[in-house]
């Protein structure tokens, strides 16, 4: 389970978010551009330091301003799929996925399952955008992280490839035993992947708390 309560002032936006997400659950975060969605993920990952608050994963404190704990990003065991550029351009797709995979068999399974086995020896830049993001997902999942953060992972893809990638992600939900936090501006995608939902507005959660699938589906129908 991940719990975070984070505050950070960036320019005119005051990020102030309190959220929790259980193991095997996916939390979809939506919101307008500039609302603070990506910043929230970066704060959770340790790529940016919050002004105050805490982050706990499975009871272990990764950040706590009061206790002056700030675990560096490389020690957090968090997988982060960025909008693009998660894969190293100088490594083959296979090496990108298997080098950091905690479970090599799972890595190989994901390569086959995500239909990228024909790209094993190819460099990421020689693959299409959709294939690259599937490889990035496989890399993130094969690490068996304590938390999986997805920052608009399919936003650079066309609608057809976005749907395919979402379906691939959905198909491995059983394999992912950690909490998943997905940031997207696509409500359909949020609904498809998420179990619970929230909308970020001006750095805070709109309405103050997360909502259920039914309420979210009703709100955006």
């Amino acid at each position, binding site marked *: 389970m991940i719990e975070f309560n984070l505050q950070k002032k960036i320019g005119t936006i005051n990020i102030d978010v309190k959220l929790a997400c259980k193991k095997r659950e996916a939390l979809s975060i939506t919101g307008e551009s500039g609302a603070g969605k990506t910043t929230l993920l970066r704060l959770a990952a340790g790529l940016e330091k919050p002004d105050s608050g805490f982050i706990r994963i499975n009871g272990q404190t990764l950040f706590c301003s009061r206790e002056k704990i700030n675990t560096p990003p490389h020690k957090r*065991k968090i997988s982060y799929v960025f909008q693009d550029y998660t894969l190293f351009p100088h490594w083959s797709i296979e090496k990108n996925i298997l080098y950091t995979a905690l479970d090599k068999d799972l890595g190989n399974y994901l390569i086959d399952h995500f239909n990228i086995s024909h790209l094993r020896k190819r460099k990421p830049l020689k693959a299409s955008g959709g294939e690259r993001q599937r490889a990035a997902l496989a890399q993130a999942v094969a690490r068996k992280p304590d938390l999986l953060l997805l920052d608009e992972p399919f936003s650079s893809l066309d609608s057809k490839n976005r749907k395919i990638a979402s379906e691939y992600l959905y198909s491995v939900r059983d394999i992912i035993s950690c909490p998943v936090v997905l940031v997207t501006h696509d409500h359909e995608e949020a609904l498809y992947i998420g179990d619970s939902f929230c909308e970020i507005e001006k750095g805070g959660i709109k309405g103050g708390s997360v909502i259920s699938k039914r309420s979210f589906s009703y709100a955006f129908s």
Partner: protein
Amino acid sequence: MLDLKSLILTVKLAGIVTPFLVIAVLPAAYLISFTRFKGQKIVEAALNLPLFIPPTVLGFFLLIMMGPDSFPGSVYEKITGSRLIFSFEGLVLALMISNIPFAVQPVLTAFRKLDKRLIEASQMLGFNRFKTFILVVVPNSVSGIASSAALVFSHCLGEFGVVLMVGGSVPGETKTASVSIFESVEMLDYSGAFKMSFILLAAGFFFSFLITGVLKND
């Protein structure tokens, strides 16, 4: 007459200085590019200093610093039994110091051009700073590192002021191609000076072409 001995010595000198210096500046360039520390600008300015002072001035200071009365010079003499100045080893050290800016600048440019998201992706994969440096930063900066090596090598081939001050002109030990050209001209051996100069000119053009024509397009 072509002074083959000096030419071979010069290539040997450049061949030793280049890999040692380029490898030595990589961590320094990494720290300057990707971290922030107190006095960073001063360190960067110090690394660039040899660019802003005459080679003879630099050579003079190195001569004093490496002389038998200096601390490094006396320690070296105690350990090896021979003097650091007017020796091949002393020349290697002097050229490593005088070539620091030529080694650092292309590497710094390459590191600063690197997409910062790659570093973040590396951190998120659990790589610490050292692993990120070895596995991500260096392989993605190959053309900058190669430019640095080409620049240092070609500068070593033609270095004169520092070489003359620190090494003098000991045949087979410190008499490099450029010192040989200078002596040939002094002795009015224009034919020998021309042959040596032409070889250095061709080498210079080769490295210039390598840096501007090949490595920049990489």
